[in-house]
């Protein structure tokens, strides 16, 4: 043939045929993962996006007080609103009263000004008996708080569907009347502290599992197969037990007068601790930070250990032998030859444990004290006991952002997505 393009038997250029074959393979691969992808999108991605949306989108008040919200949009926020706003407010409250949404209105406003929930309810009840205006008089007679410009600023702000309120309160901030951001009063300022506490406990648990898990993984990877298999069962068996059962087991072990306390007494450690002044009297292990970290370390240990083990298993023993034959002491060989090779497993195991620890709330609730509540516990409280979807979504948003930021920094430092795991 005259041209120098390589062709297949039926005359089509080889390059084209290759591309067609590759595309076919790609299509087949995509179809195979399509069900899983759909599942992840529907059960994972979409719920997360809905939750994140709830953190800054709350149309509830705007829907329940439509006319008031509409009129307040044009209000300047400096002096008391006019008679038309009060009239709209009264009309909206009457409608809300019949639809039984007054409590929701009050609840939303109560987040910003305490006592407003009962005042809104009382106002609605009193206005039900008033037929005609002047409405400013009627509303302010029902409760003097409606004479306050700050109250109406709050109503105006709460009326807009897109609101920074929940995100700000998840960071212990709020908006003052003029729109500037300031910190919430001292007795309500907890979320930043709790976030810090959560990150701190998770880090501590990660370090503990690493210190405890690394030697065990080393042992499992280097012992002869039979012994290693039996020891592996000891590691995996608790892993298969329910988390709640394990936490309750710690409750029994750590309670006052329980197994741990008796052990400390009999072994004389209590006496030593008393003499050193660390504790006075009986050791109290239950419902403390110590108990929380201990139980969490126990539960998270397999998560750190197994990735490290899997990487260690792929390291050939010849490297260590070569290092020693070149004159390195065992410790030096370990430090410079063996450990760097296990870093990918260490990084993966630590990351896994850290992220899982961030979401703990049952274990701190059962074995921890009042000041051990982690952020997931607050998300649970906000959702179940306070019914505050906005706050729980905002806290989830903050936690997710913190986690992703930390992962990004971690990735830059260790380059985990470039690592080949064995």
């Amino acid at each position, binding site marked *: 043939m005259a041209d120098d393009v390589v062709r297949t038997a039926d005359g089509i250029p080889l390059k084209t045929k290759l591309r067609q074959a590759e595309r076919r393979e790609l299509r*087949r691969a995509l*179809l*195979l993962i*399509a*069900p899983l992808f*759909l*599942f992840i999108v*529907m*059960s994972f991605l979409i719920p997360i996006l809905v939750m994140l949306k709830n953190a800054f989108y709350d149309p509830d008040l705007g829907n329940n007080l439509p006319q008031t919200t509409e009129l307040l949009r044009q209000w300047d926020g400096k002096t008391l609103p006019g008679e038309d706003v009060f009239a709209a407010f009264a009309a909206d409250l009457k409608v809300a009263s019949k*639809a*039984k*949404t*007054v*409590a*929701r209105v009050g*609840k939303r406003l*109560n987040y910003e000004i*305490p*006592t407003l*929930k*009962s005042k809104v*309810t009382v106002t609605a009840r009193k206005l039900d008996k008033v037929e005609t205006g002047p409405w400013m008089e009627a509303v302010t007679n029902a409760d003097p708080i409606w004479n306050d410009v700050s109250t109406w600023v709050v109503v105006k702000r709460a009326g807009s569907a897109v609101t920074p309120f929940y995100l700000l309160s998840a960071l212990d901030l709020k908006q003052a009347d003029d729109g500037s951001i300031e910190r919430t009063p001292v*007795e*309500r*300022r*907890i979320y930043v*502290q*709790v976030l810090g506490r959560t990150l701190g406990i998770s880090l501590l648990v990660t370090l503990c599992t690493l210190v405890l898990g690394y030697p065990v993984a080393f042992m499992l990877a280097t012992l002869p197969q039979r012994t290693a298999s039996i020891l592996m069962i000891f590691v995996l068996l608790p892993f298969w037990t329910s988390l709640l059962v394990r936490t309750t087991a710690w409750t029994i072990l750590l*309670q*006052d*007068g*329980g197994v741990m306390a008796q052990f400390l007494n009999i072994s004389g450690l209590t006496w030593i601790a008393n003499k050193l002044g660390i504790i006075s009297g009986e050791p109290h292990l*239950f*419902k403390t930070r110590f108990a929380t970290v201990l139980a969490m370390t126990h539960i998270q240990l397999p998560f750190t250990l197994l990735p490290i083990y899997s990487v260690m298993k792929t390291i050939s023993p010849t490297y260590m032998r070569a290092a020693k034959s070149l004159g390195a002491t065992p410790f030096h060989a370990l430090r410079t030859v063996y450990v760097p090779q296990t870093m990918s497993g260490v990084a993966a195991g630590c990351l896994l444990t850290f992220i899982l620890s961030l979401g703990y709330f049952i274990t701190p*609730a059962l074995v921890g004290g*009042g*000041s051990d*509540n982690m952020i997931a516990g*607050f998300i649970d*409280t906000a*959702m*179940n*006991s*306070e*019914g505050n979807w906005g706050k729980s979504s905002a806290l989830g948003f903050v936690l997710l952002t913190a986690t992703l930021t930390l992962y990004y920094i971690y990735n830059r430092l260790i380059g985990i997505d470039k690592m080949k795991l064995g």
Partner: protein
Amino acid sequence: MKKLSVLFGAALLAGTAFAPTARAGDELTITSWGGAYSESQRKAYYEPYVAAGNKITEAEYNGEVAKIKAMVEAKAITWDVIDVDSPTALQACADGALEVIDWAKLGLDKAKFIGSDVSECAVPSIVFGTVFGYDTSKMATGPTSINDLFDLAKFPGKRGLQKNPTVNLEWALIADGVANADVYKVLATPEGVDRAFKKLDTIKSDIVWWEAGAQAPQLLADGQVAMTSAWNGRLQAAIDKDKKPFKIVWDHQGLDWDLWSITKGTPKIEEAYRFIAFASGAAPQAEQTKHIAYGPANSDAIPNVDPSTLPNLPTAPDNMKTAFNIDTQFWADHGDELKERFNAWLAK
């Protein structure tokens, strides 16, 4: 052919994701608080009701109003009949999450029921008292008044309290010198709330918090606490059934009701009414007192109560001397912000 089967598999999987969750057809789901209380309801109400040919499923919760509201708003009702305490009843009713009770449909005389006007959305079932108790085998001379709960010098040791501001704040004010009649007036002011939290601060580091009703007697039995607040029936059940040497201190007990309510929009409303009518009858109500020391709301049941149980009921004259009624309207109005303040105080 391979492509087709793969496509078909994908479509099937996607289809199952949209299948609606279904409940067993004719079972009535009754939600209550678990532990010894649910056990007493099982013996007095559920078992006889099921024996008469009906089907019941039990569920448990710890008084979370949010769960009820979420269910109603999402129109995915999994609980039909809910045993609520009065603050929950008022709050859920105001939010439109419970059905308004038609007493005529129940076939019961509203006047005969103590507390029938607590809420229009609920039928009172029992009267219970929040008390505190101690273990006589660990403490020879135990506390006798509410001040002893806050007295760490005279009665050292940990105290168990419910992880909820209700009753704890009232007790703090009472121990600080406020009279029963003024407690809610004081608690309605910001200074009053600060005062209550300041009093609680004096014992904060010695408090062990419980959430489920069964935890309180458990903490006492484990020796984890020197004294604990609890719902009187739970402690009494531990004394009677588990033969524990506990003693209940009735001083300044907080009285409240447990009421039956029906979730709004439940498809099983007829069955719900039938069950509540049955459970509110004089005979089953008297039967319940045999299993837990709570006062029946149906006054017709009281003559049938075992005389040996009478002194253990919260409504017994000896126990009522310093008792106060939990002001449910107050908690319905102020509960939200006090809960938030309480959670923030806990976290510090």
